[in-house]
C-alpha cells in the first residue's frame, strides 16, 4: 500500500498528449502549468538531496545505539513499575494535579477571551486585543514558555501550571471564538427580537449553541495538558517529566517504559471518559 502516493504522483507529472484525436490518453496533470510543475518537482528533489546530504549521520554511534534500542524494547515488554515507584507515583500525581489546576484556570480565562475574539460579538478594539493574546499564546511551544516561567517564578509546579494555563487560553479561546462565529444567526436574532438584554441574549441565544463544543474542547484540552505536563517537567516546572528525564539519563529503560505506559494508559482512559461525556452533552 506504500506505493499509493508514489503512484498518484506519477500520474500527476506524466506529460499530457496535446493532439485531440491522439489514440494515446494520459490523465491530465495535477498542476497545469508545465513550468511550475517541473520547477516544483525539481526544487523538491534538489531540496531533498541537499537536506539528506547535510545530515551528519554517525553510523557508529547508531550501531552502538541499536543495542540500547533493543534494551528499550525489552524494557517496554518488561516495564519496571516497582523500582522507583515512589518517584513515579509522586510525579504522576503532581502531573495530574497540574493538569486539573491549569485546565480549570485556562477554561475560566478562555471563555471571556473567546467571546471577545468572536467578530460577531465583540467591537473591533476588544476583538484585536483578544486575538493578539491568542496569537501570543499560540506562537511559542509550551516548553519555551515553561523555561521563561521557571526563570521568573522559580522551580516547581506553579511555573508548569501557569505555562499550561497560558497554552490552554490560546487553544480554547481560538476554537471557541471560531465556534461562536459560526453559530446559527437566526436563533440568536430571534432571542434579540423578543427584547432581551445583552446578557440574556448571550445566555439564551449564544450559550446553548456553543456549550456542547466548549465542553468537548475542554475535555480534549485536559488530555493535551496532561501530555504536556510530562514535558514541562524537563525544564523544572513540575510533573512526571523530571522523573522521566532521570530515567533516560541513567539508561533505566524499564522505568522509563513504565512511565510511558502509565501516560499512554491515562490518555486512553481520559479519551474514553471524555467520549462518554461528549455523547452525553450532545
Amino acid at each position, binding site marked *: 500500500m506504500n506505493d499509493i*502516493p508514489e503512484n498518484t504522483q506519477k500520474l500527476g507529472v506524466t506529460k499530457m498528449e496535446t493532439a485531440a484525436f491522439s489514440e494515446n490518453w494520459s490523465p491530465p496533470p495535477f498542476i497545469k502549468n508545465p513550468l511550475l510543475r517541473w520547477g516544483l518537482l525539481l526544487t523538491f528533489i534538489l531540496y531533498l538531496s541537499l*537536506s539528506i546530504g547535510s545530515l551528519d549521520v554517525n553510523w557508529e554511534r547508531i550501531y552502538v545505539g541499536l543495542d540500547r534500542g533493543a534494551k528499550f524494547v525489552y524494557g517496554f515488554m518488561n516495564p519496571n513499575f516497582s523500582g522507583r515507584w515512589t518517584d513515579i507515583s509522586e510525579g504522576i500525581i503532581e502531573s495530574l494535579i497540574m493538569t486539573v489546576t491549569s485546565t480549570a484556570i485556562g477554561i475560566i480565562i478562555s471563555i471571556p477571551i473567546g467571546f471577545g475574539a468572536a467578530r460577531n460579538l465583540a467591537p473591533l478594539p476588544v476583538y484585536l486585543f483578544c486575538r493578539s493574546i491568542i496569537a501570543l499564546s499560540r506562537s511559542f*511551544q509550551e*516548553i519555551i514558555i515553561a523555561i521563561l516561567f521557571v526563570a*521568573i517564578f522559580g522551580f516547581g509546579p506553579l511555573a508548569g501550571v501557569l505555562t499550561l494555563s497560558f497554552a490552554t487560553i490560546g487553544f480554547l479561546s481560538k476554537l471557541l471564538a471560531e465556534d461562536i462565529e459560526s453559530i446559527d444567526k437566526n436563533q440568536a436574532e430571534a432571542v434579540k427580537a423578543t427584547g432581551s438584554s445583552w446578557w440574556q441574549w448571550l445566555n439564551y441565544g449564544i450559550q446553548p449553541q456553543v456549550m456542547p463544543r466548549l465542553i468537548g474542547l475542554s475535555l480534549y484540552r485536559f488530555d493535551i495538558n496532561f501530555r504536556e505536563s510530562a514535558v514541562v517537567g524537563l525544564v523544572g516546572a513540575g510533573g512526571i517529566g523530571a522523573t522521566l528525564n532521570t530515567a533516560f539519563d541513567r539508561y533505566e529503560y524499564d522505568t522509563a517504559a513504565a512511565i510511558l505506559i502509565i501516560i499512554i494508559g491515562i490518555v486512553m482512559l481520559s479519551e474514553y471518559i471524555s467520549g462518554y461525556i461528549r455523547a452525553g452533552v450532545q
Partner: protein
Amino acid sequence: MTKKLNPKTRVWHYRSRNKQLISWFIWLVATALFMYCWQRVSESTTWFFVWDAPRIAGDIGYRMIPPRWSYINELWEPLWDTLNIATIGTMMAIVMAIPVAFLAARNTTPSTTIVRPIALLIIVSSRSINSLIWSLLLVSIIGPGVVAGIVAISLRSIGFIAKLLYEAIEEIDHNQVEAVTASGASNLQILIYGIVPQILPAFAGISVFRWDINIRESTVLGLVGAGGIGLQLNASLNVLAWPQVTLILILILLAVILSEWVSAKVRHSII
C-alpha cells in the same frame, strides 16, 4: 391527565429535583477538586520567589533588549537543520502512517478483532507521547543530533496523520466504491480508483498541516539534544545570554508565521 390541569397554576421547573441535586453535586466536587489541587500546587511553591517575580521579569526583560543581531550568522545552519527535521520527519511519518491508517479504518481493515486494535494502539501511543519525550528517548538510544530529531518527529506524527487519515477513510462515500467494485475491479484497483481519489485532498491537507506543526515542534527539540535551533537556545540559556535568546525567539516566531502561511496557502489551493 395534563389536559385537565389549569395552565395558569401549572408549575414548571427547569430541572427536576434530582437533576438539580446532581448538578449541584458535580459543581461541588469540581470546586473541591480544584481547591485541593491548587492547595497542593501552592504547598510546593516558594511564594517568596513568586512575590519577587515582577522584579525578576522586569530584570530579564531589561537584559533581553536589544537582541544581539550579529549572532544570526551562527543560526543559519541550525535553522536549516530545523527545517530538515520537520520536513524529512513528516515525510517519513507519512510513509509509515498510510498503512496504519488503512489498517485502522473500519471499512478497509483486514480484521477488526486483531489488526485494527493494534493499529489503534500504535496511533494512541504515538499521540500520547510528546515529540520532546520521543527525542529524549532517541537521544538516549542513538545519541544526540539531527537524526534523533527526525525520528522523534516522525514517531510523534504517525499517530496524528494516521488518526485523521483513517477518519477520512471511514467517511468516504461508499457508493463510489461500490461502483468501482461492480465493474469487476480487484482489491488493489478498488483502493486506487474507489478510495484514494476520495481521500487525496484530506490526505494532502493533513500532511501539510502536520508539517506546519512539526516546524514549531522541531524548533525546541534541541533543548534535549536532538538538533536544530533549540540547541542554540539551550546553549544561550545555559550561559544566560539573554540577547541571543531574544534573537532566537524572534527567529522561531518568524519561522512559525512563515510555515503557517505556507500551510494555509497550500491547504486553500487544495480545497
